[in-house]
C-alpha cells in the first residue's frame, strides 16, 4: 500500500509536476511582468527544478531496486461507469526512460543557455521546455492509456509552440501548422481508439486492457480498425511515413528544442507504442502496417536524408529512419531490444544535434554546401559529431553496434527481409553521416567558416559530457543486462553489421563532393535527386490530395450555406415583401367589395363544414 512506501516513492507524481511548475515559474518573465535584469532568472529556476526532478528520479530508482516495481494510482474523475485515474507504473524500464527524459532536458537547458544567449524571449523558451519535460515525464511513467493520451496531446501542443517559437518568420508559420496538424490527425485517430476501448473495456489501465483484450474476441474488422487507430498516434509522434513531414519542417524551431524532439520525444512515442503492442494481438493488419511503415520509413528516410543539403534536415530524416527500425523491432515483438535501441539512439542523436547546433550557432548557416574545414578550429564540436555518428552506426562497438547485432541475430531466422532492412539502413546512415562530416568539418574553409571559434563553455560542457556518456554507453548497457545479453550474437552477424557500416563509411568517403553535387546535371540522376531532396514530393502530394479535398469541401459547404440555405431564407423574405407590395396595389378601398368578399368566404366555409360533418 502507498502508505507503507518511502516518501520519495509516494511523491513520484511530483516529477511531472516539476516540469509544469517550471513553466508556471517562468510566466512572470515570459509575459514581461518582471523586466528588470532580463529573463535569465526564469532559465535558472527551470534548470534548478529540472535538477530536482533528476535527483528525485534517481532516488526513486534506488528505492525501486530495493523494493521491486511499484504501481501508484490516484483517482482523478469518476462518474457513472467511467473511472479515469492517474496511474504511475514504476518499473525499472519506465524509470530509466524517465531519467533519460529529465537528464536530457537538463542538459539541453544548459546548452540552450549558451545557444539562445541573446534571445529576448528566453523565458518563454524555458517555460515551454518545462511544459515539454513535464508532459514527457508523465508519458513515460503513465500506467494507463487515458493519461498517456492526455499527455501525448499536451506534447503535441508544446511541440507546436516550440516549433512556432520564432513565429514572425514565414517558414516557421507553415512548420508549426504542419507539426500540429499532422500530429493532431494521429492523435484524433488515437482518441477514437481510446474512446472505443474506454467504452468496451471499462478500465483504462494497461494491465486491465491486456487482460480484457486476451479474453474478448472482437470481430476481425473491428479489431483491425482499433489496432490501426491505436498505432496512428505513435506513428505521428515518431514521424513515420506518411506522417513524417512535420519533423524536418520542425527544424525551423530553436536547436535545443530540436535536440529534445529528435531524441526523447520520439522515444516517448515509441514507448507508448510498446505499451500498446499487447492490444494488437488480434489485429494482424495493424502489425503488418507497422512493419511496412517501419521498413518504408527506415529506408526511405535514410535515402531522403542523403539528398538533403540542410544540415539539420539531413539529421532529422535520420531520426525518421531510425525510428522506423524501432517500429520494426516493436512489431516483431522485441520490446526489450526496442528499448535498448531507443536508449542508444536517444543519447547519440542528442549529441549529434548538439554538435549541429554549435556549428549553426557559430556560422549562422546550416547549408552544407557553404560549410567546410571546421575540424581544426572546433575540436569539441568535431569530436561530438564523430562520437555521435559512431554511436548511431553499427561500425565501432558503441551503442547502436550492439543493438544492430542483437536485433539482427534475433530476427534473422523468422524475418530475414526485415533483417536486411536493418543492414541496408545501417549502410545508408553510415554513408550519409560520412558525407555530412566531410562537407562540414573537412575540406577547405568556405567564406562562412573562416572565423569559427569553438563555442562557449555553456554549450561545450554538455556536449563533452554527453560524448563521454555515449562512449561509455556499451558498459551501461551491459550493466542493465538485458535478455539476451548485449553481446549474444554470432560472429557472422557481427561481421555483417560491421561490414555494412564499413562499406557505408568507405562509399561516403569516396563520394564526389562539391557544391554542384547537390543537383547533378545528368538528367536521370537529377530526377532521382529531386525526388529524394523533395521528400518524395510528400508535401505536394498532401497539398493536392487531402488538403485540396478538405479545402474543397469547406468551399462547397460555404457556397451551399450562402447560396442554398441563406438564399432560401432571403428568397422567402423577398417573396413575402414582393407579395405584400403586389397586394397593396390590389386594394380598392371600396367597403362594398370587402363585405362581399367576407360574405362569400363565410358561405364557402359553412358549406365545407356542412359537407365535412354530414
Amino acid at each position, binding site marked *: 500500500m502507498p502508505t507503507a512506501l518511502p516518501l520519495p516513492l509516494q511523491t513520484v507524481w511530483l516529477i511531472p509536476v516539476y516540469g509544469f511548475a517550471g513553466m508556471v515559474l517562468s510566466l512572470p518573465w515570459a509575459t514581461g511582468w518582471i523586466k528588470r535584469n532580463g529573463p535569465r532568472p526564469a532559465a535558472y529556476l527551470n534548470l534548478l527544478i529540472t535538477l530536482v526532478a533528476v535527483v528525485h528520479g534517481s532516488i526513486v530508482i534506488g528505492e525501486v531496486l530495493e523494493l521491486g516495481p511499484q504501481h501508484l494510482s490516484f483517482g482523478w474523475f469518476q462518474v457513472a461507469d467511467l473511472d479515469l485515474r492517474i496511474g504511475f507504473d514504476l518499473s525499472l524500464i519506465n524509470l530509466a526512460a524517465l531519467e533519460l527524459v529529465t537528464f536530457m532536458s537538463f542538459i539541453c537547458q544548459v546548452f540552450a543557455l549558451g545557444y539562445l544567449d541573446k534571445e529576448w524571449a528566453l523565458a518563454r523558451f524555458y517555460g515551454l521546455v518545462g511544459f515539454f519535460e513535464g508532459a514527457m515525464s508523465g508519458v513515460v511513467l503513465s500506467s494507463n492509456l487515458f493519461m498517456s493520451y492526455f499527455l501525448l496531446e499536451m506534447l503535441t501542443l508544446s511541440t507546436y509552440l516550440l516549433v512556432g517559437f520564432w*513565429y514572425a518568420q514565414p517558414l516557421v508559420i507553415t512548420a508549426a501548422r504542419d507539426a500540429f496538424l499532422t500530429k493532431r490527425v494521429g492523435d484524433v485517430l488515437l482518441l477514437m481508439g481510446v*474512446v472505443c476501448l474506454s467504452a468496451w473495456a471499462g478500465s483504462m489501465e494497461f494491465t486491465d486492457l491486456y487482460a480484457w483484450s486476451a479474453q474478448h474476441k472482437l470481430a476481425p474488422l473491428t479489431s483491425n480498425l482499433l489496432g490501426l487507430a491505436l498505432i496512428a498516434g505513435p506513428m505521428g509522434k515518431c514521424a513515420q511515413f506518411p506522417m513524417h513531414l512535420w519533423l524536418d519542417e520542425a527544424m525551423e524551431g530553436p536547436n535545443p528544442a530540436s535536440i529534445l524532439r529528435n531524441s526523447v520525444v520520439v522515444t516517448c512515442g515509441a514507448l507508448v507504442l510498446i505499451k500498446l503492442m499487447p492490444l494488437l494481438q488480434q489485429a494482424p493488419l495493424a502489425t503488418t502496417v507497422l512493419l511496412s511503415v517501419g521498413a518504408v520509413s527506415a529506408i526511405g528516410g535514410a535515402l531522403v536524408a542523403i539528398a538533403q543539403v540542410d544540415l539539420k534536415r539531413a539529421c532529422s530524416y535520420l531520426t525518421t529512419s531510425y525510428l522506423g527500425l524501432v517500429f520494426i523491432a516493436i512489431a516483431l515483438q522485441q520490446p526489450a531490444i526496442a528499448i535498448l535501441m531507443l536508449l542508444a539512439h536517444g543519447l547519440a542523436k542528442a549529441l549529434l544535434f548538439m554538435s549541429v547546433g554549435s556549428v549553426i550557432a557559430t556560422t549562422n548557416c546550416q547549408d552544407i554546401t557553404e560549410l567546410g574545414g571546421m575540424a581544426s578550429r572546433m575540436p569539441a564540436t568535431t569530436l561530438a559529431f564523430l562520437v555521435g555518428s559512431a554511436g548511431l552506426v553499427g561500425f565501432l562497438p558503441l551503442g547502436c553496434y550492439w543493438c544492430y547485432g542483437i536485433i539482427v541475430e534475433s530476427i534473422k531466422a523468422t524475418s530475414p527481409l526485415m533483417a536486411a532492412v536493418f543492414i541496408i539502413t545501417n549502410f545508408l546512415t553510415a554513408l550519409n553521416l560520412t558525407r555530412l562530416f566531410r562537407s562540414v568539418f573537412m575540406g577547405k574553409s568556405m567564406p562562412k567558416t573562416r572565423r569559427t571559434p569553438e563555442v562557449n563553455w555553456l554549450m561545450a560542457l554538455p556536449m563533452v559530457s554527453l560524448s563521454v556518456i555515449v562512449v561509455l554507453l556499451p558498459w551501461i548497457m551491459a550493466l542493465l543486462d538485458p535478455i539476451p545479453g548485449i553481446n549474444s550474437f554470432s560472429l557472422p552477424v557481427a561481421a555483417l553489421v560491421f561490414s555494412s557500416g564499413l562499406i557505408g563509411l568507405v562509399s561516403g568517403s569516396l563520394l564526389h563532393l562539391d557544391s554542384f553535387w547537390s543537383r547533378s546535371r545528368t538528367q536521370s540522376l537529377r530526377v532521382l535527386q529531386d525526388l529524394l531532396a523533395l521528400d518524395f514530393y510528400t508535401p505536394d502530394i498532401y497539398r493536392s490530395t487531402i488538403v485540396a479535398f478538405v479545402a474543397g469541401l469547406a468551399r462547397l459547404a460555404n457556397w451551399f450555406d450562402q447560396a442554398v440555405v441563406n438564399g432560401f431564407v432571403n428568397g422567402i423574405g423577398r417573396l413575402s415583401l414582393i407579395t405584400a407590395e403586389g397586394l397593396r396595389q390590389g386594394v380598392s378601398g371600396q367597403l362594398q367589395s370587402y363585405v362581399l368578399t367576407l360574405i362569400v368566404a363565410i358561405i364557402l366555409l359553412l358549406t365545407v363544414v356542412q359537407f365535412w360533418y354530414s
Partner: protein
Amino acid sequence: MTLTLLLLIPFLGALGLSLWPRTLCEVVARRTAIVLLIIQLLLSLRVIFLFDSTDGGMQLQEGLYWLSSLGLDYRLGIDGLSLPLVLINAVLTLVAAIVSRSISQRPRLYFCLLLVISGAVNGAFLSQNLLLFFLFYELELIPLWLLISVWGGSNRAYAATKFLIFTAVSGMLILGAFLGLAFATGSVDFSLTPVTTLQLSMGGQILLLSALLIGFGIKVPLFPFHTWLPDAHTEASTPVSVLLAGVLLKLGTYGILRFGMGLFPEAWSVLAPGLAIWAAISVLYGSLAAIAQVDMKRMVAYSSVGHMGYVLLAAAAATPVSLLGSVFQMVSHGLISALLFMLVGVVYKATGTRNLDVLRGLLNPERGLPLTGSLMILGVMASAGLPGMAGFISEFLLFRGSIEKFPIATLLSMVGSALTAVYFLLLVNRAFFGRLAVTPVDPNSGPLDIRIPASTLVEQLPSLMLAGSVVFIGLWPTSLASITESATNSMAQLMSTLSIVLPIGVTP
C-alpha cells in the same frame, strides 16, 4: 425565495435603472448594472450551498398560483441540469457588462436590456411550468433584438430582423407543441411530467416532439436552421456576442434536454438514431463552413454550430456519461466561445478589422497584442479539445458516452473535432503569427506596419478569468460533475427504463 430573488434582482434593477428620475451618465449606469450582476452572481453561488448534490430531482422549489385556469402557475425549481447554466448566465452577463465600454448611445437602455436578458434567461432555466418557460423564452427575445439593431454593426437591420423572425418561429413551434400536448392529453397543468403512450399515441408524440426539436433546433442552432447565427454575431457588438453564444444558445440545448427528452422519452428513443445523424451532419457542416470563413467572428460563429451539435449527439445517446458530457459541453462551450468572442472583440477594437486576409503577426511583443494572442492560442486549443482544458473532458465524455449507441455518428463527430483544430489553427497562424502588418500584403504598396494601442491588464481581466475557469474545469472536472451527476443519472435512468418498455409501446 432564493430562486425568485434570482429573477427579482435583474428585473427590478432594470426597472429601477429605466425609471430613475435624473439623467444617468454611462459610467453610473454601467456600475449599477455591474453591482447588480455581482449580487446576482453571489446569489447563484449561494444556491450551490443550498443545493443537495446527491438529489437528482428538482430542488428549492417555490411557487404561487397565478392563472391556474390557464394552467399558468408561477413555479420555480432547480436541478443539476439548470444550476450550471444559471451560473454560466450569471458569470457571462457580468462579463458582458464589464466589457461594455464606451456605449455610443442610450447607455441606460443598453444596461436595462442586459439585465432583462439575464433575468429572463434565469427564469427560463428555473421554470417548472411549460407556459412560464415559454414566457421567459420569448421575453429574452426582444431585448436581444434591440441590442443588435441599435448597437450593432453596419448591416444590423438585416441581421436583427433575421434573428427576430427565426426566433419568433422557434417560439411559435414550441408554444404549438406545448398547447398541442395540453389538448392531446386533455390536462392543462403544463407541468413537467413525461407523457406515455397511454395518454398519447406514438404518432402524436413524434409530431409534437418534432415541433419542439425544430423550435429548439433553430435556437441551438442546428443545420439547416443556423443561418441567422453568423449574421447576428457579425453585426452584434462584442458583449452581445458573448451573451448570445455563451448563454442564449444554451436555451436551445436546455430545451431539447428538458422538454424534448423530458416530456417525450418514448418518442425520443424512437427518433434518437436520426437525431444522432442530424447532430453529426450539423457538426461536420459547421466545422467545414468555418474553415472557409475569413471574418474571425463568422468563423467562431460557425464553430458554435459545430460544437453545439455535440450536445444533440449526447442527448440522442442518453447514457449517464453522455448526458453529463452534454452539460459539460454546454458549460465549456459557453466559457470558451465567450472568451473567443471577447478576444476577437479586442482585435477588432485595436485594428478596426476582423479579416484574416488582412491581419498578420498580432503576437508581436512590442507593438502587437501579445497577451490577447496568448489567450487566443489557449482559447482555440481549448475549443479544439486539447487536454487540460474544459473542451477536452467535455468531448471525451460525449464521445465515450455515445460511441456504443451510435458509433458512426460519434466517429463522424470526432472528425469534426479534428476539423476544429484546422480552422482555429489557421486563425491563429494567419492573424497572430508572421510579421506584424494590418494592410493587405500588396507587392506594390508593401505591408504597412501599424502601432496598436496596448491593452491594459485590467481590460483583459475578464478574459483571464474565463481562461482560468476553462483550465480549472479541464484539470478538475469533478467540480462540475459533482453538482450535475445525480440529475443526469436520473435522466438517463428514466430514458433507459422507458426504452425497455418501448417495444410494447411502439405498436400503435
